[in-house]
């Protein structure tokens, strides 16, 4: 297993940054059991893959989109994944909508929520915690979501 925190510290030091990134640390975790059985639950996806790359990265904020508007290819160029070893040409590897649709069609899951949610990878923990996450939670409540699968890239 790779120790990513140690590795990113070394990598950015090698780029001449003198202050290490402070990864989010929480010692208390809110926790909810699913409100409904899977076969009647409504599910959504949360992704860090970018829908609108025309918006400059420093001002991207959380946003919700109808699943019908999910791009065939999200923009992943600015995200920090292993570009030496792999690729993101197969959307299902980070946004498994086909797999989810199949389970819904089979009757295993109640329904797909109307919207999925983009959350930007942010240097600022404050932006994520105080602005982006509450917005997505609010939209999930509006959509009567029971379950969310979060898949960071």
């Amino acid at each position, binding site marked *: 297993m790779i120790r990513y925190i140690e590795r990113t510290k070394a990598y950015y030091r090698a780029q001449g940054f003198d202050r290490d990134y402070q990864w989010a640390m929480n010692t208390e975790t809110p926790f909810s059991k699913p409100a409904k059985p899977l076969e009647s639950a409504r599910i959504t996806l949360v992704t860090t893959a970018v829908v609108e790359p025309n918006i400059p990265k420093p*001002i991207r904020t959380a946003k919700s989109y109808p699943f019908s508007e999910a791009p065939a290819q999200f923009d992943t160029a600015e995200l920090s994944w292993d570009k030496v070893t792999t690729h993101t040409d197969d959307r299902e590897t980070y946004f498994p909508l086909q797999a989810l649709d199949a389970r819904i069609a089979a009757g295993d899951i109640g329904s797909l929520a109307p919207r999925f949610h983009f959350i930007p990878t942010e240097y600022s923990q404050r932006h994520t915690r105080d602005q982006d996450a509450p917005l997505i939670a609010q939209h999930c409540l509006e959509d009567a979501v029971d379950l969310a699968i979060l898949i960071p890239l």
Partner: protein
Amino acid sequence: MESKGIATVVIGSALDILQRAGTPRIVFNDLPLGNPVGIPFDRAMQNQTLAAALELLYQAQSPGAIQTLPHRWSASDDWRANFMAITPSNRAALLALGDENRRQRQLNRAQGLFRP
């Protein structure tokens, strides 16, 4: 989301980062970053990961639940050494990358490209 009654699960490959953040439920695939659900076009693996995530949503009794999947990228583990590698031959390039990054950040701020 959890505090508002929505059960969540993260499918990810950087376990140390997820654990530090206090993630309620984690399905962990020890694969190169970029394909947390599974190897590209390996539908069987991807379906297994989704199934594990759905199961963990219901099986977890308390926060911090982790399901580690047995999936492997390949027979070789060479990819682990390649990620964010720092070598004698790329040191200068990395410094240049950092310089460009710092220059871009300054430019962004000067142009008002930042979030309040």
